[in-house]
């Protein structure tokens, strides 16, 4: 009888736990941790190719999910290159040609500055909850961190990745590992957070590795050198005029 009571208690605890949090609620927590009204950051991108490694530094201003402006600070060949995202439109300014070029269609699939990230990845909505429905599949350890394992399926047909599998830190609500799949089920890209830091009361990725699994090479490493949340960004930053400034 005692065994039966213990079993019933355990079963009901498990059911209570299962009812406690859903995949979509986990996505909401990830989004609320990631997204802020405004942020400014300086980041380093290290592209590890088969023949050489390139390091680029960029400063970015981001407002919500719709607007972002980036300026490359180094190396010399890329210095002064600027990118402006407004909604689903993207422009690039090249100082060597003094041209403002709209990136659209076929070009969005191309690699951003030779990295494992495409322009399409760059353009992506920051909020996972806007793009995907999540299903909680279980729990796994990523290193020493206990994680929820979620399977995401696209809400819309026009997304770059039809489904994703993510491992979310149960305490910090950061997706420590991500696998991104095509509609056919083929793995296209992986994303791993290798270091996190606490800034302004929230946990944020410090170092990440993005890997296009269809390409040879060791992937692209992103390092957040500095980041400020909820800073004031003048409206003119997010205009095409600021590209030539």
């Amino acid at each position, binding site marked *: 009888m005692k065994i039966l009571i213990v079993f019933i208690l355990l079963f009901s605890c498990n059911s209570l736990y299962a009812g406690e949090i859903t995949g979509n609620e986990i996505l909401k927590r990830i989004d609320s941790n990631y997204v802020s009204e405004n942020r400014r950051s300086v980041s380093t991108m290290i592209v590890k*190719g088969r023949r050489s490694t390139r390091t680029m530094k960029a400063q970015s201003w981001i407002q919500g999910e719709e607007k972002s402006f980036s300026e490359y600070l180094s190396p010399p060949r890329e210095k002064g290159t600027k990118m402006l995202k407004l909604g689903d439109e993207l422009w690039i300014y090249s100082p060597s040609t003094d041209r403002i*070029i709209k990136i659209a269609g076929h*070009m969005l699939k*191309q690699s951003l500055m*030779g990295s494992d990230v495409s322009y399409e990845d760059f353009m992506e909505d920051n909020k996972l909850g806007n793009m995907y429905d999540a299903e909680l599949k279980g729990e796994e350890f990523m290193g020493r961190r206990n994680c929820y394992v979620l399977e995401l399926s696209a809400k819309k047909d026009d997304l770059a990745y039809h489904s994703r599998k993510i491992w979310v830190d149960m305490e910090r609500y950061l997706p420590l590992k991500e696998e991104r799949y095509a509609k056919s089920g083929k793995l296209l890209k992986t994303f791993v957070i290798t270091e996190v830091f606490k800034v302004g009361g929230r946990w944020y990725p410090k170092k990440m590795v993005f890997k296009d699994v269809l390409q040879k090479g060791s992937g692209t490493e992103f390092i957040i050198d500095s980041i400020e949340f909820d800073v004031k960004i003048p409206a003119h930053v997010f205009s095409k005029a600021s590209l030539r400034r």
Partner: protein
Amino acid sequence: MIRFLIKGLLRDKSRSLFPVLTVSAGVFLTVFFYCFMQGVIGDFVRSTAQFNAGHVKIMTRAYNELSDQIPNDLAILGAGELLAEMRESEDKMIWTPRIRFGGLLDIPDEQGETRAQSPVMGLGVDLMGKDTPEIEILNLEKSIVRGSMPKGKNEILISEDFAKKLGVSIGETATLIGSTMYGGMAVYNFKIAGMVRFGMVALDRSTVIADIQDVRSALDMSDGASEILGFTPNMMYDEEEMTELVKDFNGEFSRKEDEFSPVMLSLSEQGGFGEYFNMAKSMGSIVVLVFMFAMSIVLWNSGLLNSLRRYGEIGVRLAMGEPKGALYRRTIAESVVTGIIGSVIGTILGLAISYYLEHVGMDFSSMMKTSSVLLPDVYRARVTTTSYIIGFIPGVLASVIGTMFAGIGIYKRKTAQLFKELEV
């Protein structure tokens, strides 16, 4: 005896006309298809060699693995040194470096913003060098339909259809957006000097041709090249010679443990061209066999009808004591004569239309709008020495084989019944 047979055939037209017409038609089709296939495959090989594969091509081993993706980050570095070495060691061959590149071609408006944009396939070739062979290899001067050859820095040629699509004219700026050799973003302004039409949908759809030095500046490929192409001096591909050259080069330069060491491939080793070559070689035999088979059946049938019509004649000849074997052999001799006459007529007709199509060609451009293979829009036949004799094989053989089968009936006639049959 031959004169006797010819007289018989000429005087009794019902005996010779149908077999001669059948053989003529079959031989005509054999000669025409043979010449046409020779022309199509020859054009395909020539255009592929000129624009893509060369007679031999040198790349890095890593580039070769992914060559369909044009991975310029894996291109040859120190191309100048390798080129000089090849020009010295294989001085009879023509060697030339090329850079293939892809990306977007962006046309600016007055404010320098995007007015039109489209994916582009580019070719960086030696346009400005002294004694450059590329202008002749790519037939550039004759392909220009508007404007002129690039004379200054950063001037390019653009395919006319592509220019129309982008709404761009001579003298305008076109910005290339692509990737540098090191993976960075390449944005580079070119000026349109001329418009070309190659007569190949795959090239005319979205191609630009620029001087290799300008492309090196654009893609940060100082002394780099995607590939170094080698051509025989007479521009005729020689499989045996090229295979030997490939073997020697790879033995000396290519190392499996170094993915950036150069590797040479012959034309037949690239993109399954070996299969096309084998197909071209066996095309004559295939055409001959197909028509020989078809004509044999038709002529067998015709021989059977002839046997019925000449039933009485054969009976009388047998009754007069002509041996069955001699009669059978004479019938076959008659078929050789009809076969030769039909083959001569068919060959003359086949060569006539082939010569016509060699000059005029057949335009298939409307059927190749989405083609990505380097095939010309206009297909031309090609008359070779073999074209003059190839028709005689099916012509004579089919005639003889058909008669041999039909003539077996002679041996089935029974001498004892001949007079009875002749009474009827």
